[in-house]
């Protein structure tokens, strides 16, 4: 009896399915301790997803942190080798919310590929992202962007660092009106302004968007980015997973670390993105490595929203008389054989709903 198939979808089963998925593609399991050196997070604060880090003094006086992120720890240990590091993880991360000071334990699954990143490697990671989404829902979308394209356009506009950040924020919030105002305030030439603002409105199936993107290319960086997106998309279509992909520049990530394709996964019924990832070679450079890297994380806590938990507890109630229990255990086990959850009590004490209620009398079950 496959417990995983018969048990209602839950966090545990999602985790198990995801692990099996990543293992099928030959990714190794990465395990890490609950704690990480605080300085690692301090030096790479911009890479973290936000929220306060929970710190404490270790036994040797070092400042430690309850781990908030797994990618940094993987990258910290990665070496420049011929064999690519292909790992997956299912770990709990810890974050303190900025405003309420609640400390949360967040189950997270993820995949990292560190090494020579070619088009096939990128499409494999995106395929894993799509398959991860399909594990948790039937209705999902993977929004895909390319930081090379965004950067290329920003370079053409010659903005200062501060304005680049504001422009990126407008693109992430789809605020075309604010982008127009920013462009005008900084004297951006009209056709470039139109292209930048188009970044905040372009959204749709890749085959529909590619012609528009090609028309928006202004330099080598932007042309190369569209070419790369096309190649990745073609490979994804070969596997039949192309239909849930959308071109979506509002998924743009921190420009410091993400230099190529970036993506976010959404599941219908869940208000925030449940999957987030991208190509982050620039983080590896910061660690003095020559390799490239691409990966993603799945936020399993958010999936609670989408689940239809009608779980009221046990399916069957068996009432018994403490003086007449010979054969009761066997009868209960027999009921459990067909996968039902059986609760045994001497009295009916509350009005919980059960599918069936039995009374155990004189060696047998009587349906009430």
């Amino acid at each position, binding site marked *: 009896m496959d417990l995983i198939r018969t048990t209602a979808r839950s966090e545990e089963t999602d985790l198990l399915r995801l692990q099996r998925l990543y293992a099928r593609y030959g990714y190794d399991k990465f395990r890490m301790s609950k704690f990480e050196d605080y300085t690692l997070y301090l030096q790479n604060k911009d890479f973290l997803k936000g929220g306060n880090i929970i710190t404490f003094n270790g036994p040797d006086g070092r400042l430690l942190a309850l781990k908030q992120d797994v990618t940094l720890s993987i990258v910290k240990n990665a070496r420049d080798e011929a064999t690519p590091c292909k790992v997956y993880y299912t770990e709990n991360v810890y974050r303190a919310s900025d405003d309420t000071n609640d400390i949360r334990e967040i189950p997270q699954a993820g995949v990292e590929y560190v090494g020579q990143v070619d088009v096939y490697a990128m499409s494999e990671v995106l395929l894993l992202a799509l398959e991860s989404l399909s594990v948790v829902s039937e*209705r999902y*979308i993977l*929004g895909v962007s390319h930081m090379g394209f965004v950067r290329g356009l920003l370079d053409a506009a010659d903005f200062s660092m501060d304005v680049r950040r504001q422009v990126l924020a407008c693109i992430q*919030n*789809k*605020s075309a*009106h*604010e982008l127009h105002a920013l462009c005008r305030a900084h004297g951006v030439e009209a056709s470039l302004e139109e292209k930048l603002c188009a970044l905040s409105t372009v*959204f*749709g199936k890749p085959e529909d968007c590619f012609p528009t993107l090609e028309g928006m290319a202004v330099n080598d960086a932007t042309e190369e980015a569209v070419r790369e997106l096309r190649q990745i998309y073609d490979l994804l279509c070969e596997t039949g997973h192309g239909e849930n992909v*959308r071109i*979506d520049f*509002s998924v743009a990530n921190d420009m410091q670390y993400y230099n190529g394709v970036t993506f976010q996964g*959404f*599941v*219908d019924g*869940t*208000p*925030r*993105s449940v999957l987030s990832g991208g190509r982050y070679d620039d983080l590896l450079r910061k660690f003095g490595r020559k390799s490239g890297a691409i990966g993603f994380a799945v936020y399993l806590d958010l999936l609670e*929203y989408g689940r239809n938990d009608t779980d009221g507890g046990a399916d069957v109630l068996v009432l018994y008389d403490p003086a007449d229990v010979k054969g009761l255990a066997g009868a209960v086990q027999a009921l459990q054989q067909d996968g039902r959850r059986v609760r045994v009590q001497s009295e009916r004490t509350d009005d919980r709903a059960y599918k069936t209620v039995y009374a155990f009398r004189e060696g047998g079950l009587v349906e009430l």
Partner: protein
Amino acid sequence: MIHIALPKGRLGEKAYQIFKSLGYGCPEIEEDNRKLIFENPENDVCYFWAKPSDVPVYVERGAADIGIVGKDILLEHGSDVYELLDLGMGKCRMAVAGIRGHRPAADKTLRVATKFPNIARSYYASQSREIEIIRLNGSIEIAPLLGLSDVIVDIVETGTTLRENDLEVKAEILPISARLIANKSSFRFADREIGLIAEKMKELVTEHD
């Protein structure tokens, strides 16, 4: 069904009239009743009233697909939502105001009374000015008059309240107006419907300008 969060008050009522004129009316909401949620299955739309500062919370968390909210609340709250359109309604300014003719000493820590501590902090940080924030919830104008603070950071519409109390605008921080916001996840699954609403509203708004 598209769920729309409307802010209680004048802005929300104006916004509803706009939705109605675009074909998203809901007769229930116009009736005099104590209902909180109003559905119109014909238009496939559902409205509810919320405290203005709560609208971004409903939208961010997906309880509403879209909402109408002032830029001041968006900036103060820091919501992770799409800001699709500037409705050009409810126009006013976020400004620093203080007693007319009075200039607080530049070497002292400036005491700022405000309902918008995040906006105030961010404004003065950009000026590298050290401040002490005094968080109030209403009638901010009386703070400098009673010596509670040196200045206030607040919304100014016509400026009449300030003038009548011998206060004046010292600096304008930014212009404020009502915005159409959308939940980031809803948008991806209902981009056609939400995009259509935004498009229609944009046409209406630019007509008026």
